[in-house]
């Protein structure tokens, strides 16, 4: 491991991350130096807009320099697909910031935006990392930022409780994962995923099984897969809405992209015939458990945030199927699914934040009569939830179709793909019930309170743009095919 570090190539490969870090410092300075005496709302808006500007800059850079690069013998890799995921992640962060402009949970807006940008940096590094050590460091940067953000509503006991649960579960699983990584290193003599493929392929040593189970625990926590999902409902419920949106969107996308890369590294491609069965079995077990438990538990919820948390578990299960299929096509399908799912979820949390601000609650009753109180807001919620349920012509349907088609087309003689796709589709029929429970409140149930619900123009425009994107991507699924290859 005597690699001469070429700092200029490191700089070139991490320039978008650097942009975000510089902007996060800038936000802190601006907030501390000039805005201390101004009104809280101005400070929040300024900080958010600075963050958005930084995100736009990073996106422009990523689009303008579509190079394939590799650093330090493949420890950090940027391919067109990695760049596409990074663009998606920064875009999601920008949307979350746009939707937080009116947020009132924090008295320290500069710090809030700065930590959001740091978390985003972590996500981008997670996506590009192909070396166990860098993966771990990047994941910790992401996780520590998210723990802090979860606790950001300092006046809310729920927020503190959610952060503590998230932190305890997260710290534990990070330790397990690091332990697993150390075994992997011991077994293969390398920390680089691409070299590990060869060394580990076909290995059925008990120690390899232990190592993989430990790694699965760490990554399963990040994607909220059963049985590592216990933190999800409480965190989604207690965290400030923009933070919950960030955990549910960018963090998920990054973790799934990482999982695709790790699976690619641990399991030799199925065409070579000697895949590592243990890892696939673990993935399938987590997928089946998440699909069934997520959908069934969501049926019983009366809080929209908790409902979205359980639905997130179910969606993680669907995506795990694509990862277990482990073909280039299914990997791309997972990334497509994760990105579009994240986009939809950010929109849904945006609506929840607005409803919470007006009614003080995220329970079903709070949504009653929304179609009367704010028709446009109601229409966007309709689009988001139906897309999550997988109703065409919204993008959620296309993502599901694409994913399951890829799973079934994997060159695989086993019968689990068909069996699990059957389970997944049956479960998604169940899922319509709980999404309709929310939409029933929005459109059917009459509310005593019919005053218009106040929404700022920025929020409404952002939500409308997301809803439009969800619709257009569903009608023209080929729009993203320049970045994410289809079948």
């Amino acid at each position, binding site marked *: 491991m005597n690699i001469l570090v070429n700092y200029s190539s490191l700089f070139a490969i991490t320039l978008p991350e650097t942009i975000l870090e510089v902007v996060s410092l800038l936000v802190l300075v601006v907030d501390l130096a000039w805005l201390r005496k101004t009104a809280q709302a101005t400070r929040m808006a300024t900080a958010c807009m600075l963050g958005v500007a930084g995100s736009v800059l990073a996106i422009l850079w990523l689009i303008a320099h579509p190079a394939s690069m590799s650093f330090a013998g493949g420890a950090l890799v940027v391919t067109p697909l990695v760049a596409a995921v990074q663009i998606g992640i920064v875009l999601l962060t920008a949307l979350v910031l746009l939707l937080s402009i009116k947020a009132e949970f924090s008295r320290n807006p500069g710090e809030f935006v700065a930590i959001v940008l740091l978390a985003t940096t972590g996500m981008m590094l997670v996506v590009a990392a192909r070396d166990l050590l860098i993966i771990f460091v990047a994941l910790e940067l992401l996780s520590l930022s998210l723990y802090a953000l979860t606790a950001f509503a300092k006046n809310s006991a729920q927020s503190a409780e959610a952060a503590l649960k998230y932190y305890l579960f997260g710290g534990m699983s990070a330790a397990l994962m690091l332990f697993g990584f150390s075994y992997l290193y011991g077994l293969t003599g390398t920390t680089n995923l691409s070299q590990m493929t060869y060394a580990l392929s076909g290995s059925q040593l008990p120690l390899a099984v232990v190592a993989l189970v430990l790694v699965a625990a760490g990554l399963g926590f990040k994607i909220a897969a059963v049985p590592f999902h216990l933190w999800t409902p409480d965190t989604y419920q207690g965290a400030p809405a923009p933070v919950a949106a960030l955990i549910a969107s960018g963090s998920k996308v990054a973790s799934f992209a990482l999982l695709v890369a790790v699976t690619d590294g641990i399991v030799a491609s199925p065409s070579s015939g000697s895949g590592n069965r243990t890892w696939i079995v673990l993935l399938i077990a987590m997928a089946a458990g998440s699909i069934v438990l997520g959908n069934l538990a969501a049926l019983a919820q009366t809080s929209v945030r908790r409902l979205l948390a359980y639905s997130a578990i179910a969606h993680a299960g669907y995506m795990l199927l694509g990862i277990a299929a482990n073909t280039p096509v299914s990997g791309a399908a997972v990334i497509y699914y994760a990105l579009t799912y994240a986009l939809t979820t950010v929109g849904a949390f945006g609506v929840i934040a607005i409803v919470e601000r007006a009614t003080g609650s995220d329970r079903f009753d709070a949504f009653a009569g929304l*179609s009367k109180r704010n028709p446009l807001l109601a*229409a966007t919620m309709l689009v988001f939830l*139906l897309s999550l349920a997988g*109703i*065409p*012509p919204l993008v959620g*349907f296309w993502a599901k*179709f*694409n994913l*399951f*088609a890829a799973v*079934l*087309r994997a060159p695989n003689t086993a019968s689990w793909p*068909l069996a699990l*796709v*059957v389970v997944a*589709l*049956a479960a*998604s*029929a169940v899922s*319509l*019930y709980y999404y*309709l429970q929310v939409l*029933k409140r929005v*459109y*059917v149930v009459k509310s005593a309170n019919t005053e218009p619900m106040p929404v700022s123009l920025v929020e409404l425009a952002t939500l409308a743009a997301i809803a439009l994107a969800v619709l257009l991507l569903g009608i023209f*699924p*080929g729009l993203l*095919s320049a970045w994410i*290859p*289809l*079948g």
Partner: protein
Amino acid sequence: MLAFTIYLSFAGALLLAIMPRAWARAARVFALLVAVAGFAVGVAGFIQSRGQASDAIADLAWVPQMGIHYTLAADGISRVLVLLTGLAAVAGILFSWNIGDAEGDRANEFFAFFLALIGGVYGVFLSVDLFLLFVFYEIAIVPKYFLIAIWGSTRREYAAMKLALYSFAGSAMVLIGLLAAYAQAGGHTMNLQALAQYPFPVSFQMWAFPLVFTGFAILAGMWPFHTWAPTGHVAAPTAASMLLAGVVMKLGAYGCLRVAMTMFPHGLDPWGFSLLGIGSWRTVFALFAVIGILYGAAVALVQNDFKFVIGYSSVSHMGLVMLGLLTLTQIGIDGAVLQMFSHGILAGLLFATVGRIVYVRTHTRDLGGLSKLQLGKAMPFAAAVFVIAGMASMGLPGFSGFIAEVQVLIGAWRSFPWFATVAGVGIVVGVAYTWRAMQRAFFSDVKMLDTQGVAVPVPEYGPVTWPEIAGTILLAGTSLLIGLYPRLLLDVISPAVQALPHALLTGGR
């Protein structure tokens, strides 16, 4: 050209959705215009393409990487069902003309959901690409939920949710079958014609066929998956009942024929062993169909809610459609398609009479309550309409139902003589329940007595409005026209049935 039925309906729905709430009356006029335009396009397409076997309408690459194309085409079966959809849409709007009279009716939303549903239905009937067909099929589910849950009556939220979940479960089954077939055939195409040519292994067809067939049959109201239908029909507002029974159930039957049977014809083959005398999926489903015919009719015979009578009669009539399809004979399938058309019109007319003409004035659908109102005298128009629709529905010669039922029975007689006999009994029970409902609702001589035992005079009801008359003439007239001159449709249906895969026309031999 027929593609404009789809575009017009969706554009209309979109405009209605963004129309200001205060324009309720304008909304329904606009909706009627859109529906009439769609119907006119359907008629024009029907006339223009007479004599042609099948015309391609559109074929654009949609997701070429995955072999998914935007392919629309119409053969005779599609053209007839497009015509039916247009009729049902126009009549449905005419019979919901009272929506928008009152404040808070949310008329523009109602008609927006209504037209979105119609657009989805048109799309299913015209799609050749299975992905596209499935997209339209699912688009039709959500508006149904809202139409019933918002504007419905008896236990509307329960009925709406039940209907939505049944539909979605059915479409999940269909999607499994389609995805498996797509992957099995190499993942190059979703075109129905291309996939129908692909030699799927018989063992594959043996599980894919029942799965997809059942998925669609749920929406067709096939026993024992019919239970969404009566509750849904009863809870739905009149226009939605008319659409549910009139066209949505046809979506299911159409899918059974066009997708399940066409793609997996060997799924109908004998299993090679027989269990209790049942030796193939074909016999299983034919048995379900026959049970549906008899069960629906028998349950309709003892209902006290007028709408439930019609709801269960729909189950019975759709059983006849399914039986006709499974006869695997030219005449049986001809009859099934004609029965789809005929039942679509007549069920619409019956629901309109009960839910709109009678209920809006009397505010009851209870046959016991109605029998005291002397509706035959108080509402001669309603009585006359119900007599006509009832007669046509029970299969009186001269109306569309007769030709269709006779053809189905002849086909069934060739393929399943025993089932044909039982189906015949079901039709007789059909006469009985229609007669009973007619007698109790309109021609009962029970008088309503006041506390002194003196007969209360016949109450006055509001006058019959022009939309009611127009809708009635449209539906009853069409049924009569087809009854008197069935070749108008049969000349179009028969060539399309002949063009089905050969295995579907062998009578199962």
